[in-house]
């Protein structure tokens, strides 16, 4: 397609050439030492662009197609794989529903929960519950200051419902 030598503007704007023009230019550059020298004057590493014109042996490409055919034959058909996935999803959903149903069936309702909470009169004082934890002060029903000491570190915790963050 391009037997003539490359024009200076084609060499200068080589990267802007359309695909077909570029292919033809590369064919010519592979065979014309003069044009190649002018083209490579801009950058010697451009020479590797010519590898685009180096064909992959046809027998290797055919070998790839054969290998691919075998591999795809062994692979489950795409539709079948998806069908299997759908069945597995439905089965998992049913199993989950059954487990949740059983849990909820055996779980106490709101009335039972209130009744159980009423049985709890007073929680034991915190200083008896957690080692190292001391009540510093309880100025009102809504606030309390606790102290937690771990080794040399002391942490003061202030609980006050009137504090807005």
């Amino acid at each position, binding site marked *: 397609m391009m037997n003539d030598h490359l024009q200076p503007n084609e060499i200068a704007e080589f990267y802007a050439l359309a695909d077909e023009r570029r292919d033809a230019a590369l064919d010519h550059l592979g*065979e014309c030492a003069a044009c190649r020298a002018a083209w490579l004057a801009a950058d010697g590493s*451009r020479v590797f*662009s010519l590898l685009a014109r180096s*064909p992959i042996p046809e027998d290797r490409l055919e070998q790839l197609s054969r290998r691919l*055919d075998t591999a795809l034959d062994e692979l489950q058909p795409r539709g079948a794989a998806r069908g299997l996935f759908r069945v597995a999803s439905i089965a998992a959903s049913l199993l989950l529903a059954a487990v949740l149903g059983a849990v909820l069936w055996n779980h106490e309702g709101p009335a039972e929960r209130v009744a159980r909470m009423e049985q709890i009169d007073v929680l034991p004082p915190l200083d008896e519950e957690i080692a190292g934890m001391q009540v510093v002060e309880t100025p009102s029903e809504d606030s309390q200051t606790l102290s937690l000491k771990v080794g040399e570190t002391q942490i003061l915790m202030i609980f006050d419902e009137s504090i807005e963050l």
Partner: protein
Amino acid sequence: MRDEPQLIRDASAGERAAFDELVRLKRERVVRTAFQVTGDLDDAMDVAQSVFMKLWQGLDRYDPRRRFDTWLYRVTVNAAIDFIRGRGPKGTIQPLPDEPADTIADDDPGVEARLDLATLQQAFSRLAGELAPKQRAAFVLREIEGLDTAEVARVMGVAESTVRNHLFQARKTLRAGLERDYPDLVPLGATKKPKE
């Protein structure tokens, strides 16, 4: 004869014949890209096979508003980079062989001025071993596959400035290697002029 968009649609729907035709259409590009990134034709064949397997399994998720070749290059380059990372430093500097490489065919080297593509391939396979995988991939896509910088950035999923940086580093390394080991491949002085 179906055109490419039709082949893609039919293959997406699970038609094997359409997919086989699509493979025929794209296989050389995929193998060539994988070969230039991995530096080994056998490795490239493995990469190409995994690329087409992924293609078959994921083609129905392809967004037709995007360029198919960009997507294909992306899968290929990622697979090739993963392959060379998993394979280890096989591509680092190897001694210069005495015989020309014969992995890639060279058509009738009868014309005196014709560049010997086998020697050129051998030079690239050896010198590109000095590049980081992403530099190598960027160079292959830009220089050998002829993509513009924006397209290379889309394929690699990076910014254009990153691609320019990869290309700058790759060219610098390759020019130095050409000058050092293959001075006959390029005219005197051509290896010393940076382009970007």
